[in-house]
């Protein structure tokens, strides 16, 4: 019988015969740890394995993104614990200046189509955007991955979601993502791999795919793939990452455990309201809600294209007094692009606070303000509504 995309990727990384529900040992192409979880990985590693070398230092990385630069002595110490371990083991660190680890792995061509990647970021399944099997895990699992280059995994069942119809501006990939999240909820895709098909997703650019796949975690899914793509995507991804892009397709005779169809024709901008990312409403239902603070960034919406769109909408306008508006580029590369293309200046003139790259807002803990986010758990289109 044929295989789904996830079954093919796992089969490429194990000697055992892969079938859904079976636990197999899987070889890992990339093993990573962030500043969150990373210090525990180092502690576990030193307790269990002393100064024994990691399985392959060229496949092992630290990515500091959660608290970059550190906001407290504790965070600074934790990052230093990782740096010193990395020096001793001769492991590459993408330090606090580099931005969100999952994005850096894509930019550097380290997470590529068909690869297996683990790390301490619970949203590492965002790598499905480039056809890679990314998976967030706890520090015990990542310690073991550092030492052995392997992990065990229960091959997930795959569901097929057909997205019918198409959407157009001002509706964006983020609105599509929220709408699909609303429709699928948190049960349909739970613990499953999801293959998304249909015109609306086939045409997504790489940043749109990143936005879309970043929220499979919120659907409680293991990983999401968009196996079909338009002609320009291959060139776009290869130019972007320097890595060859030849993702797997599912076999025609593969087996899905479930299917769903969602129609998105005429989709309008969507907003996720507290306290669940799947609690999604049409933006028109929220007319009149006053906003204290806005945010655009995170692994979901921190690419140059997201910030360019915001700057277009804000051109010649000012953020209202009493409202704070923060922009955080996903990575140093995005920072450079918005600097060179004048996007940063446009946002600055409108009154935005522009921070250095990283996770920023999603790692903050704020309860009192009424926030509108264009991020993972976002209130999108703040600029048109809130200024």
């Amino acid at each position, binding site marked *: 019988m044929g295989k789904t995309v996830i079954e093919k990727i796992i089969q490429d990384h194990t000697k055992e015969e892969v079938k859904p529900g079976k636990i197999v040992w899987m070889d890992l192409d990339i093993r990573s740890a962030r500043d969150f979880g990373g210090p525990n990985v180092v502690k576990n590693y030193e307790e269990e394995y002393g100064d024994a070398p990691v399985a392959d230092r060229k496949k092992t990385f630290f990515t500091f993104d959660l608290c970059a630069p550190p906001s407290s002595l504790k965070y600074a110490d934790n990052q230093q614990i990782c740096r010193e371990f990395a020096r001793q083991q001769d492991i590459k660190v993408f330090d606090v200046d580099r931005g969100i680890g999952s994005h850096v792995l894509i930019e550097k061509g380290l997470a590529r189509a068909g690869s297996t990647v683990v790390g301490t970021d619970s949203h590492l399944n965002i790598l499905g955007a480039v056809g890679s099997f990314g998976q967030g*895990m706890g520090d*015990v699992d990542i310690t073991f991955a550092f030492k052995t280059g392997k992990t065990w995994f229960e091959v997930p069942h795959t569901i097929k979601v057909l997205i019918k119809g198409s959407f157009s501006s001002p509706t964006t990939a983020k609105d599509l993502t929220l709408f699909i999240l609303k429709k699928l909820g948190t049960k349909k895709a739970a613990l499953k791999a999801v293959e998304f098909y249909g015109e609306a997703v086939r045409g997504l650019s790489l940043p749109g795919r990143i936005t879309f796949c970043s929220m499979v975690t919120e659907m409680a899914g293991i990983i999401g793939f968009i196996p079909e793509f338009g002609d320009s995507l291959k060139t776009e991804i290869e130019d972007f990452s320097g890595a060859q892009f030849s993702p797997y397709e599912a076999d025609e005779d593969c087996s899905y455990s479930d299917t769903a169809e969602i129609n998105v024709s005429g989709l309008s901008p969507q907003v996720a309201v507290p306290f669940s990312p799947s609690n999604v409403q049409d933006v028109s239902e929220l007319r009149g809600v006053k906003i204290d603070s806005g945010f655009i960034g995170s692994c979901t919406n921190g690419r140059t294209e997201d910030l360019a769109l915001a700057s277009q909408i804000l051109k010649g306008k000012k953020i209202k007094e009493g409202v704070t508006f923060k922009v955080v580029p996903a990575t140093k590369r995005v920072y450079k692009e918005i600097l060179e293309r004048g996007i940063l200046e446009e946002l600055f003139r409108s009154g935005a606070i522009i921070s250095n790259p990283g996770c920023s807002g999603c790692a903050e803990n704020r309860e009192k303000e009424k926030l509108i986010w264009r991020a993972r758990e976002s209130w999108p289109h703040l600029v048109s509504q809130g200024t």
Partner: protein
Amino acid sequence: MEKSFIAGRIWVLSDQSNKLIEDIDTDQIFHNAFLHVTEVSQMGQYALGNLEGWKDFSKKARPGDILVAGRNFGAGSSRQHAVGCFISLKVGLILAPSFGAIYLRNAVNSGFPVLRCQELDELVAKKALATGDEIKVNFRSGEGLNVSRKTHFKAEPMSAVQYDIYEAGGLFNYGKRISKG
């Protein structure tokens, strides 16, 4: 010959209508008020301490006892304590139709035996499995024997991976073993 079975007295985690309790989450297994406890040996006293009807479990359990639970045992947040408390009490095995994904990872990584058994709801409903019964399960084949009632049942055997880690005494030990070879 290598050991391939686990035997012991069972506790059926059922409600007052004799149905297996489903979706027992990690907070019911190990209350978050005691998460500061880091020594596994100290965790046993809190086992099931937040599950209505079972709060005195740690006083009743004996080393080697087996837990029979409903589907999705160990749902919810990741906490190693929810596995550690049973290791501390020397519980021999947990049987359930299914486990929470992270709970399963934590249990397997700790080398603590958990097995899936799809027949449990039916066995409990027809009273072919009840608290106090002595059972014996071959975790390599999945063959189960209710020694008290002389009846048979079938669990899912350990996968090769789970067995490797169990036999090595946990994931880290397994890591030492394979990276030597």
